[in-house]
């Protein structure tokens, strides 16, 4: 079992690098330029090990570590599912770590050395979550991940809003962790053995299995950001430094997907037909919710956070379909839906990290996160703009980039639902497909807004003219991720190949991959096929040919003038659409989804002021009453807290008596 030992070594390497940062905690030069690039190389190695465990012929490896509590050693296991998520972690981690090397600089908040420790512990804990083979180690790694990311989110801990965002994140992470813990408690089924192997051996009744399933969905859903437990995402992601946002959104949300897959498709091997409906419905709702809310945001990182909610929704939609298909014995289609989920998780890790990092560069160059004060950066920061364009097109699900591949697979999975032999389900699925199509189209709207307002047009503030270019380390990180989007889009077969061992172990089938390496036809070539490479070649070929033909036959003469704009001479950059203006149609169409507070200036104001505040209705409908209820409950409990030592001693005494009575 060499590759598992190698992996442990690599994870230890990450921890070691993190500790090394403490040697010179205030030296940005040492921490950023030396340690972070080394961390990136470790990430590359982790990704490669993950890839090697997905190659045909690789077998699952297990290892028992003599760590942990007495009688409770740590079990670890490298199987295809774990390997796929290690590949995801590694491939996104390379780009993010390289970028982080150029990104972090001294300032207020956490010292660079400490940040470096937290960052690498975060990476290592995510790898351990994926490798864990017993509930104990899983929870330890899961909590380490939550805590290390909490400290990373609150890097700028002197700002009250950031402390508040961090608290919200920690709270919901722990509510989720309780759900996961309880789910494992049900899964052990009375055997009191907490290795995953023992759990696989248990046969639970339908009621118990359903409870475990729902607890897992709730627990992992809180981490993934499913509605209604999404509220921490748009707060925590903007608060964190950009590489951390990228890591959280691109990779950490996927560990929740991993956990859900592990519990539902691996540990629970009985299933009820209705199980799939729950993640499917919640996923679709989440996706649509995320897309609609992303369209009205004015802060670029909040916009991306809502877009992450949308993408997680899409992944859970695909998982729901996979569960549906599996419970009706349609293994091939279950494999198709599961592949769509896995591939979308990987794709999202690449393009969302890319976009978060790009916002980081913009933030550094301009000091602005507010879309309303940006604009025209394509001329100041061409490299960032070019890579961000790739990410934008990929996340909008446009061919021939990688985002389209997973959406295509998901739509194909939806189209296979008429084969489900249950009329009721059959009727509901078209509505699901419609919601999915709407979400995908809205994502395009959101991304045009994101890219157009930041990078195109004219600078909305004069200060933007001083925006400086990014460093070369940042460029390496961005280019790596952008290349990933293009290559995986051109060779979708690679994605299917990577997902195949996972679907084989989890649902017992793989999609058809055919002999042709340049095209995919997951069900049958007559039904549907797609080739990213030829698509790309086709577009580039026609574009190139047209360009040359027009140049050759006619001419390439260009005269530079002022913008025409119907001849209106007094244009200012403020006449462009703001982010708010661009989102206005969505606000208009989906008005009832938001709680809008608007302050309009009157014509007689000497200093007119326009203010709009858009809020999630769930805050007031769910979280505020919930908070009040908890407060009331706490007040009731507070009655017994007299604040005097003698009373507490009395409690202890009474408890002892009670226990004695109970024992005797």
């Amino acid at each position: 079992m060499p590759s598992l030992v190698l992996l442990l070594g690599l994870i230890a390497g990450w921890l070691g690098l993190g500790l090394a940062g403490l040697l010179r905690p205030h030296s940005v030069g040492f921490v950023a330029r030396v340690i972070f690039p080394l961390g990136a190389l470790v990430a590359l190695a982790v990704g490669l090990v993950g890839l090697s465990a997905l190659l045909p012929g690789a077998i699952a490896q297990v290892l028992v570590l003599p760590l942990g509590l007495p009688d409770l050693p740590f079990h670890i296991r490298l199987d295809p599912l774990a390997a796929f998520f290690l590949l995801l972690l590694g491939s996104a981690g390379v780009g993010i770590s390289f970028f982080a090397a150029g990104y972090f600089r001294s300032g207020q908040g956490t010292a660079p050395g400490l940040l470096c420790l937290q960052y690498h512990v975060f990476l290592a804990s995510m790898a351990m979550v994926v490798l864990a083979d017993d509930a104990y180690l899983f929870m330890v790694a899961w909590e380490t991940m939550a805590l290390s990311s909490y400290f990373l989110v609150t890097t700028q801990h002197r700002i009250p809003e950031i402390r508040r965002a961090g608290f919200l994140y920690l709270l919901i992470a722990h509510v989720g962790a309780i759900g996961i813990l309880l789910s494992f408690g049900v899964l052990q089924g009375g055997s009191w053995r907490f290795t995953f192997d023992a759990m696989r051996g248990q046969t639970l009744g339908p009621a118990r299995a359903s409870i475990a399933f729902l607890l897992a969905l709730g627990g992992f859903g809180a981490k993934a950001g499913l509605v209604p437990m999404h509220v921490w995402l748009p707060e925590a992601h903007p608060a964190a430094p950009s590489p951390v946002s990228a890591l959280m959104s691109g990779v950490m949300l996927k560990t929740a997907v991993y956990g859900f897959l592990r519990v539902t498709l691996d540990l629970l091997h009985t299933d009820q037909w209705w199980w799939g409906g729950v993640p499917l419905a919640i996923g679709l709702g989440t996706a649509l919710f995320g897309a609609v809310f992303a369209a009205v945001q004015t802060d670029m990182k909040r916009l991306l956070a809502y877009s992450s909610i949308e993408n997680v929704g899409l992944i859970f939609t695909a998982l729901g379909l996979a569960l549906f298909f599996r419970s009706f014995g349609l293994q091939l289609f279950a494999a198709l839906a599961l592949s769509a989920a896995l591939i979308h998780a990987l794709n999202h890790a690449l393009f969302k990290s890319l976009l978060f990092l790009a916002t980081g560069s913009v933030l550094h160059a301009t000091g602005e996160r507010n879309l309303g004060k940006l604009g025209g950066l394509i001329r100041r920061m061409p490299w960032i703009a070019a890579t961000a364009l790739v990410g934008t097109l990929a996340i909008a699900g446009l061919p021939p980039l990688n985002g389209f591949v997973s959406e295509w697979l998901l739509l194909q999975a939806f189209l296979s639902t008429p084969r489900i032999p249950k009329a009721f389900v059959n009727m509901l699925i078209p509505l699901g497909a419609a919601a999915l199509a709407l979400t995908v189209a809205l994502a395009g709207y959101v991304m045009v807004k994101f890219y157009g307002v930041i990078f195109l047009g004219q600078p909305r503030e004069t200060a933007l003219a001083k925006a400086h270019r990014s460093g070369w380390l940042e460029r390496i990180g961005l280019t790596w991720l952008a290349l990933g989007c293009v290559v995986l889009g051109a060779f979708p077969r690679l994605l299917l190949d990577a997902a195949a061992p996972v679907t084989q172990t989890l649902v017992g089938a793989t999609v058809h991959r055919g002999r042709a390496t340049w095209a995919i036809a997951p069900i049958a070539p007559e039904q549907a096929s797609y080739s990213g490479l030829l698509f790309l070649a086709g577009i580039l070929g026609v574009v190139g040919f047209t360009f040359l033909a027009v140049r050759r036959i006619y001419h390439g003469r260009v005269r530079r003038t002022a913008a025409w704009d119907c001849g209106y001479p007094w244009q200012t950059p403020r006449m462009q659409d703001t982010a708010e203006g661009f989102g206005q149609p969505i606000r208009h169409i989906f008005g009832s989804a938001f709680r809008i507070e608007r302050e309009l200036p009157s014509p007689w104001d000497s200093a007119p002021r326009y203010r709009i505040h858009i809020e999630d209705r769930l805050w007031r409908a769910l979280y505020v009453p919930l908070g009040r209820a908890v407060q009331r409950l706490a007040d009731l409990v507070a009655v017994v807290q007299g604040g005097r030592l003698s009373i507490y001693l009395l409690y202890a005494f009474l408890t002892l008596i009670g226990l004695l009575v109970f024992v005797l």
Partner: protein
Amino acid sequence: MNPFAVARQVGAVLLAIALAPLFMGWVAQCRAWLQNRSAPPLLLPFRTLRKLFWKDAALAEHASPLFRSTPYVLFGTMVLAAAIIPSVVLDLPFVLVADAIALVGLFATARVFIALAAMDIGTAFGTLGARREMMIGFLAEPALLMVFFNAFLISGSTALPSIAGRLAAPPFIIYPSLAFAGVAFVMVLLAENARIPIDNPATHLELTMIHEAMVLEYSARHLALVEWASALKLFNYACIGFALFVPWGLASQHASPGTLALAVVALLLKLALAGAALALVETVSAKLRIFRAPEFLAMAFLLAVLGLLVHLLLGA
């Protein structure tokens, strides 16, 4: 790969490129007749294109490379779309590369690029047009996808030639779901091609224009390519409509030259009728207020979803 199939493929694409401006001219002519105006010559679009190609391009000072490359990308996506849609022959080798879902993606790519280009110069009209175009698009795109899903439920394939071949094959059956899809498709076609009642291709009135607002900053060869791409888009939509709703007359795999010629005649006939019908629709309807456009498109979307439900309910 069969060289004849490739030749037919290339031929079909070239035919599309050549016929698209002609179709535009035909629609304009029909419209003029119906509105009691003297009609412009049929070949006017070609003359306009030729004139535009010879002119010097005037470009805003701060236009980025994205702005300059977008016309080529638009033209490229529309040509590629023409390679997927069966207009004359059913046997298109390129169909293995992209199916109907990819076709919707291709249209979306074109839309995203033109909207980005419109925002690039940073004028009031450009961003206004981009916003409106994306608003139309995010409702029209799922509606079009749902129309294709209707066809999929009948034919079991998302490849357009397979759909057309399956629908054209005897026996002749009337599918109620396709009736819903047909109405939805016509509504999407009108919206996506900037026709009345959503947009007016002949207007430059600030408050109402959508497509024209986005291309205001283009001139000369760039504008020519944009216009040609728009013509190709309309032609492509018409051909999608033919493939889904009147799939007869397409030449099959082993067609003789005679049958091919017949297929071209059938296409011309269909185009002539469709152009006249389009002009009629545009003449009898008034332009909607921009705020009404979402309702119009939501109706198209719901009709297409209803078609799906009808199909599943009736089991046919």
